[in-house]
């Protein structure tokens, strides 16, 4: 028990730290890849971390008429995301509270963060904040069924909805990875992750064009440390989702035994796998144009139907 709890604490802390540092790095990496593929040199990979440090040093500024919601929202975003990171199987299959690491819990923790971001966007009552919040909620509402059904598809196969359980079961049955059900579910997951992290073709993180921005419109009113906290929360969310996808596609490398070496290896492998996913998403971004907002339901409905196909294929194939 003593050993287990040491191990659980260590994995949780490592995970949170890794994602907190790794999330911004992944964003920097993607920006770099995009810049290079467009023939530019681009900012260094650590640029998002530098931005965070710069923002943290600035003074706090609140818009007039804003309420406590604006001040609280960044904290809720960061806290809920950190909590989700803490209980997900990223570095090891058994972090703290891993018995609660049910995928539904994680989905709803992330949803809490999205809801807080939307409320923060609405609080100042500017046109952009409201528009961004409404668009983000629309996308969230469309992405959510796809996400849930994709998860159901995976849990049918491994007979548990505990993420750690799914990852361990995949380790035990490597042939599942290339099964049709898993591939379809992953297709759906990739679509959902792109939508949830606001990447092209759903949203363009680099734009500040009023007609197209979604996420940026929501956080337009934040400045200084609060912007830093929000951005960190978003980066960690991206890090978490990429790491989860990576671990569901290729679970190998995750720590399964309580040794320090396994944990260190887990962190290294996680970094490599998440970087690979980020590379893939960056390539999708380079190759595709942003969809018009009215075409987004098609993409997300596509994700939904993929996950339904995954469930049915999972049920008939055994």
């Amino acid at each position, binding site marked *: 028990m003593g050993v287990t709890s040491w191990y659980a604490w260590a994995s949780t802390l490592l995970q949170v730290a890794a994602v907190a540092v790794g999330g911004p790095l992944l964003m920097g990496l993607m920006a770099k890849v995009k810049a290079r593929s467009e023939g530019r040199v681009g900012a260094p990979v650590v640029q998002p971390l530098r931005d965070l440090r710069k923002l943290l040093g600035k003074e706090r500024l609140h818009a007039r008429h804003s309420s406590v919601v604006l001040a609280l929202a960044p904290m809720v975003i960061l806290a809920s995301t950190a909590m989700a990171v803490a209980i997900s199987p990223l570095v090891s299959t058994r972090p703290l509270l891993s018995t609660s690491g049910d995928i539904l819990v994680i989905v709803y923790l992330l949803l809490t963060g999205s809801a807080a971001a939307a409320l923060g966007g609405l609080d100042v009552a500017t046109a952009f904040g409201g528009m961004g919040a409404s668009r983000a909620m629309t996308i969230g509402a469309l992405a959510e069924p796809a996400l849930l059904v994709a998860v159901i598809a995976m849990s049918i196969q491994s007979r548990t909805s505990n993420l750690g359980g799914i990852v361990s079961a995949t380790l035990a049955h490597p*042939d599942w990875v*290339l*099964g*049709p*059900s898993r*591939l*379809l579910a992953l297709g759906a997951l990739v679509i959902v992750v792109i939508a949830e992290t606001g990447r092209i073709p759903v949203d363009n993180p680099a734009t500040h064009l009023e007609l197209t921005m979604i996420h940026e419109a929501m956080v337009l009113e934040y400045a200084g440390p609060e912007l830093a906290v929000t951005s960190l929360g978003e980066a960690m969310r991206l890090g978490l989702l990429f790491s989860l996808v990576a671990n569901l596609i290729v679970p190998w490398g995750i720590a399964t035994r309580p040794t320090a070496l396994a944990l260190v290896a887990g962190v290294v492998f996680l970094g490599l796998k998440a970087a690979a996913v980020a590379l893939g998403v960056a390539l999708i971004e380079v190759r595709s144009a942003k969809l018009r907002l009215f075409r987004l*339901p*098609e993409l*997300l*409905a*596509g994700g*939904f*139907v*993929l996950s*339904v*196909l995954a469930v*049915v*294929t999972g*049920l*008939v*194939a*055994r």
Partner: protein
Amino acid sequence: MSSTYVGTLELAAGAVLLSSVMTLWRRGVGSLVSMLRLQGLALAVVAIDLGAHERDRALLVTGGLVLIVKGLVVPALLRRVARRDPGSRESNPRVNVPSSLVFAAALTVLSYVVGTRIAALAPGVATDLAPLGLATVLVGYFMLVTRRRAVSKIVGLLLVDNGIALMTFLLTSGVPLIVELGSTLDVLLVVVVLQFLMVSMGRHSRTERLTEMKALHD
């Protein structure tokens, strides 16, 4: 029962269904034809995999035939039609794309419910996958009913045919060869007939748009 046999079968059957759903998703004629080719190839893989596993020469022959007819010839014919009308898209389906996809999901669930009852007669690796074929058939029907363009309708028809072929392979390891030959050749003939009609209609009324076919009504 080797696991490559099972894995290949499941993957190919899944690919058949996936490509039929993708045809509802995509609008461009070119990508419809690509999906159809993918489906034909996956279908041939199913037949050849089953034939190799059961050492059934007739099924291997059928698989080869499917490969040639549905994987190569039919898509090539369709592409020729598509080239006459480049950039043509299914711009205004009767049911819009997101709803179509949700319908496709519902049809898949329905075919699971019906299909498992059919498969229950003789449970096995191949038979259990039969609902995927039924779902392909239903998606094909949906496409036929809701899409207006002539090429889309032909694609819908071919989806129905491919779904039926998939069910045939999975449930019965292929009906007697003579019937199988008949049905495969029929597909080819139907495509030729349809192509003839499309070309003729194009020549006569300068359009292939079925929305504008209103000469006959009560």
